[in-house]
């Protein structure tokens, strides 16, 4: 694991009566891609703003590349894609990006390239007011690429992007990570995040309830694997009786079993001989994990 | 001028008519009189002397827009004392004798109006002075300080 770029210790933030963040500790090392999940209002965006120094914390501390959040050094090291990108509508995409390039100390000549990269070359000289939602999001994306950030905070980066741009986006994220950027992605699109991140952090009502790799989380969650057993002929009834599973459209039986009981069950099924035509194994997916961690429910 | 078409007719001189500047009853004084009609005012403002009327016209002050100006036709007057109540003529068409050295009703040097140029000439021939139109009356004739010790003639 590389150097720690982002270090959040015990971050707390209260707003009026609300405890928006509560004892959140999180680290990100160079090249890591971390998904930040959580229900609406869990505090994801607030955490990002705190990392940016836009919002002061009420407790705990954050350091970004060794500096305090909001310090010039921290900001130079950080790229940010807000959840609701807003640009001045009377500027063109190129003008807006040029401003950011200048501020990020990045050669202005590269602006055209970045615009092309996010598919905005044609619209570059139109006013942002005429952009579609996705086009604005793309422009937001383009500004993330400026400079060589050590830390990228992407707040729902795929929102508004069309499917093809989403793939592009994850390609970009991978590329950034490869170049050593630590990427923190707040997202609700679990399927995408599942495959594309190294670690997953889940916020629940301001508390960090999970922060690990997908495998470890799966293990730790102890969520049951679903076995789908296709019966030969009309043996489904027998299988139900034997395993305590539930019958699915006549021929099949679904069986939930905890990870530690999986091999036992498999062996028992094998022993049943040719009444079992086929067994499919569905390990828990991120969605189930998410449900588990983010709601605190047990299935 | 255009507004002459809608100009109000002259008002007869009454015993109540007060001279605009000095608030005295003009009928009690001899000599030619004047009246000026102002827009939006029920009656005209009167002047015990034509001199004062001219002074009013020459003053840049305006109470309202002027709609008509009348002066006594001294040619139609019975005499200097009884100027007459109805013999008003439009000041624009009148002939004025200035610098005649005659005293008006209040005692200041008077500017004497006539409808008829001939009558004016007769007057000038008798008392001196020259004949001008309203617009040609010099400022001095109306506005110059008056030396009360200068003797003036009281015309018949």
């Amino acid at each position, binding site marked *: 694991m590389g150097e720690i770029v982002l270090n959040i210790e015990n971050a707390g933030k209260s707003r009026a009566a609300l405890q928006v963040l509560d004892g959140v500790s999180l680290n990100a090392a160079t090249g890591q891609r971390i998904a930040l999940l959580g229900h609406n209002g869990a505090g994801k965006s607030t955490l990002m703003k705190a990392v940016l120094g836009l919002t002061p914390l009420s407790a705990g501390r954050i350091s970004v590349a060794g500096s305090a959040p909001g310090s010039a050094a921290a900001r130079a090291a950080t790229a940010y894609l807000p959840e609701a990108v807003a640009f001045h509508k009377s500027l063109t995409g190129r003008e807006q990006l040029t401003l950011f390039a200048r501020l990020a100390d990045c050669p202005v000549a590269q602006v055209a390239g970045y615009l092309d990269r996010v598919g905005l070359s044609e619209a570059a000289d139109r006013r942002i007011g005429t952009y579609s939602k996705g086009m604005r999001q793309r422009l937001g994306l383009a500004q993330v690429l400026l400079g060589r950030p050590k830390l990228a905070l992407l707040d729902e980066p795929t929102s508004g992007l069309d499917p093809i741009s989403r793939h592009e986006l994850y390609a970009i994220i991978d590329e950034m990570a490869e170049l050593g950027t630590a990427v923190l992605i707040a997202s609700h699109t679990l399927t995408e995040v599942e495959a594309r991140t190294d670690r997953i952090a889940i916020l629940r009502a301001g508390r960090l309830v999970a922060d690990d790799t997908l495998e470890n989380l799966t293990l730790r969650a102890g969520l049951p694997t679903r076995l789908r057993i296709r019966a030969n002929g009309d043996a489904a009834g027998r299988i139900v009786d034997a395993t305590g599973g539930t019958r699915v459209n006549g021929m099949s039986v679904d069986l939930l079993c905890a990870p530690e009981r999986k091999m036992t069950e498999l062996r028992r099924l094998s022993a049943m001989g040719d009444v079992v035509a086929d067994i499919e194994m569905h390990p828990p997916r991120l969605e189930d994990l998410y449900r588990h961690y983010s709601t605190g429910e047990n299935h | 001028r255009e507004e002459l078409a809608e100009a109000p007719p002259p008002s007869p001189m009454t015993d109540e008519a007060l001279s605009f500047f000095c*608030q005295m009853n003009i009928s009690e004084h001899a000599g030619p009189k004047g009246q000026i009609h102002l827009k939006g005012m029920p009656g005209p403002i009167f002047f015990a002397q034509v001199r004062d009327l001219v002074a*009013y016209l020459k003053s840049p*002050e305006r109470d309202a827009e002027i709609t008509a100006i009348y002066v006594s036709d001294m040619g139609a007057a019975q005499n200097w004392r009884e100027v007459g109540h109805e013999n008003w003529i439009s000041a624009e068409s009148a002939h004025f004798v200035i610098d005649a050295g005659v005293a008006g009703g209040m005692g*200041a040097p008077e500017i004497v109006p006539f409808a008829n140029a001939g009558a004016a000439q007769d007057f000038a021939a008798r008392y001196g002075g020259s004949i001008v139109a309203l617009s040609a009356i010099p400022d001095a004739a109306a*506005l110059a300080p008056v030396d009360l010790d200068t003797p003036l003639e009281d015309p018949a």
Partner: protein
Amino acid sequence: PLRDGAIAETLDLAAPGDTLRLRPGTYVEKTLLDKSVTLDGGGVATLDGGGQGSVVTITAPNAVVQGLTIVGSGSDHESIDSGVQLLKGATGAVVRDNHLIGNLYGVDIHGAHDALVIDNRIDGRQDRRMNDRGNGIYVWNAPGAQVTGNDVRWGRDGIFVNSSKRNLFSDNRFRDLRFAVHYMYVNNSEVSGNISIGNDLGYAVMFSKRVRVTGNLSVNDREHGIMLNYTNSSEITGNSVQNGENRCAFLYNSNKNTFSGNRFQGCEIGIHFTAGSADNQITGNAFIANRTQVKYVSTRWDEWSMDGVGNHWSDFAAYDVDGNGIADTAYRPNDVMDQVLWTQPAAKLLLGSPAVQLVRWSQAAFPALLPGGVMDSFPLMQPAPVSVPEFGGDLDG
């Protein structure tokens, strides 16, 4: 004796220097004092002229009429029917302490020299229109006449003085008249310490020279408190004009006059200059709360201060940083907007409009833009005190 004609009979018998004391009662007869006698009503006798001619006529010098109530003069303006008429010859005649009621004229000093009219109460007629009333005191060609301490009410003018000189009118009270004091063709006279209340016009001086109007009070007079009309070289000092409905002071073709120490307060216009009034000296006056302090349409500057003393202007919020009682900056009562409004009456419709205020405001800040008019380079921070008779405020007493 109360019989009609009793006075005449008694007078026939009287010798110059005698005093006739009348018994209480009303004597219906006209009296001619052609001897230097004193006719004394003792405050209880009434002379009634019966509606014909003048009630008392004096032709003898040094005759005295006093303590009488005099009523019933005739109504002829031509013969100036009066309560008391002082004709030529009545030099030094005295009319004192009489109450003249409802006579066409109260006292007519007609050619009498050095007459004295003192402490009379003259109630003129109310029944006729103002024009047809006579004057309270009529002074014609009466050099040296003094009118003092009289109380004149109703009638036309309180004192009308015509073609006279060396008169003194002082300490009189005038109410409900046309003019309180009316000067025509009079030189070298003085009006002082009088009170004019609720008349059409307070002190009107016309075609006169060298008149001193001083220490008079004018309250609630409708047209002008003090008017100078063709009047030159006069002195208007220490007067107080209050709450005139129109102008506190008005000058028409009047030159070389001096206004000083006057207080002009609460009038529509403080002082109004018109046609050809020039070389007047205006210093030490107080202009207080007049809606328009000065109305003077002029394209040249007129300095209203002398030797570092100007006038007091109640609307001038000025600084006196050195505390010498004289404001640090000059005061200009009128601005371009005033000139526009006086010369273009239609523009009055814009009064109160922000545009007008904008113009005024910039004019106020930069009076260099003004096209002439009155300028007071040494405005006084405080009004000078005036000494005028007390106006008791009782309008009916």
